[in-house]
């Protein structure tokens, strides 16, 4: 039998990713079980839950969550918005960057229950296939990625960076603190330093953002 002609073997990329995730989880559970001493079973931890309502990409969401759930895990695991990526899960890489109430934040370092009433915009909310956000289109045009894993965070961050410059927020490299900051590649590189690209696509990322900044100016 040729598996390509059997519907049972057809999987979307998302299903494949989810299945891959659960097999990884099983591996972790099995090795944890091996590592734990058999005589001292850990008592089951009481899970504390809380309710939160927030708006994600314009859609109101009412959730009851384990209080430990980060905003990142809500987006990916509960709302299945898997565009936002988990890189380091410690605020060091920027792959999880989303825009909350108009500001970019690391969604991995924010508890979902602390976002009552928040307006969250993820990469899915910036644009869609066929109607890309100008920043998404510029990343495509300038080849601002290689593996693409950091890209949603880079794009959300870049959109917010242009807004920050527009609102007059200074940066470490702004020469005159009292002047309004203006866009430059130096400014852009400093402001984007919270988004790491392990492939090193930085020069193309900078070109993409510069093009959008020029169009806005």
């Amino acid at each position, binding site marked *: 039998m040729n598996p390509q002609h059997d519907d049972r073997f057809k999987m979307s990329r998302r299903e494949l990713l989810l299945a891959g995730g659960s097999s990884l989880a099983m591996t972790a559970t099995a090795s944890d079980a091996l590592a734990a001493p058999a005589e001292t079973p850990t008592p089951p931890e009481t899970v504390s839950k809380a309710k939160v309502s927030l708006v994600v990409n314009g859609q109101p969401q009412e959730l009851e969550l384990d209080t430990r759930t980060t905003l990142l895990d809500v987006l990916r695991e509960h709302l299945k918005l898997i565009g936002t990526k988990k890189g380091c899960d410690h605020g060091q890489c920027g792959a999880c960057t989303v825009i909350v109430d108009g500001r970019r934040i690391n969604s991995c*370092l*924010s*508890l979902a229950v602390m976002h009552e009433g928040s307006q969250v915009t993820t990469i899915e909310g910036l644009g869609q296939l066929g109607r890309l956000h100008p920043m998404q289109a510029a990343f495509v045009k300038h080849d601002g990625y290689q593996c693409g894993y950091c890209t949603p965070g880079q794009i959300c*961050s870049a959109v917010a960076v242009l807004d*920050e410059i527009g609102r007059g*927020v200074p940066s470490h490299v702004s020469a005159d603190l009292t002047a309004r900051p203006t866009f430059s590649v130096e400014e852009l590189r400093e402001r984007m330093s919270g988004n790491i690209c392990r492939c090193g696509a930085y020069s193309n990322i900078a070109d993409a953002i510069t093009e959008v900044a020029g169009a806005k100016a």
Partner: protein
Amino acid sequence: MKSFTYERVRTPAEAAAAVARIPGAKFIAGGTNLLDLMKLQIETPRHLVDVNGVGLDRIETTVDGGLRIGALVRNTDLAADERVRRDYGVLSRALLSGASGQLRNKATTAGNLLQRTRCPYFYDTAQPCNKRQPGSGCSAIGGVSRQLAVVGSSPACIATHPSDMAVAMRVLDASVETVRPDGQARRIAIADFHRLPGDAPHIDTTLEPGEFISGVTLPPPAGGTHIYRKVRDRASYAFALVSVAAIVQRDGSGRVALGGVAHKPWRVDEADRQLPRGAKAAAAALLAGAKPTTNNAFKLSLVERTLATVLTQARG
């Protein structure tokens, strides 16, 4: 992460009372440091008191012409405030040299003061650390200590305080305003807010259990040229090896504080007196009694050279 219960409070007094009442409770505001530590089970609060709803998110002019910064003012907003940029440039510069844009959007004024050390052994739960587990020993002494303290350390701990903002506040003679669990307010000079490690490095500050930071007050502007110079292993988004916060007047007098060298923002009165004589004299006063490790002895000359650059820049 260990499980915890969660509540939101509306006033500083409610916040302080909640943390004092519930064993293992902690305040959470921006959460950028606390959640990181909770994921690693270095911090394991059983109850979180979310203080984001208490207000305290404004910067106001005080009657004497200084500024009162609410505890919940975000680092981005403090750095971007017109009055801070004009009159307290060293503070804007320090904030902008720290963390990333994403983190500064979340991190608060009080949270920045309360952040924990980034000593690698504090983060590595497989290693002894007196700050994480009192009495377990210090792995940094004799270990990898390139980033760590050269002055004010003890045989129990050579951790540094990671904040840039606090170094600028130290040179500005800021005060920390608090509310205690019994509702009483008090004011702590920034010089007395962070502790030296001594034999109790697990205690970072002089706050009492449940005591809540309501804000930070800056005295009237000191004038002069404000400079914050940070030396680090990469050009952006890294903790300081050495940083210098300085306010230098036209006549060469001024004040100086250091980051990246001690368990707290480091300022020595004698160094301010020596400042007109130049970087060598001021650095000698700042580093009197220094006990570097072989890994971080380079910080002694780095302090003097960074200070020399700052004084040259101040002369314009």
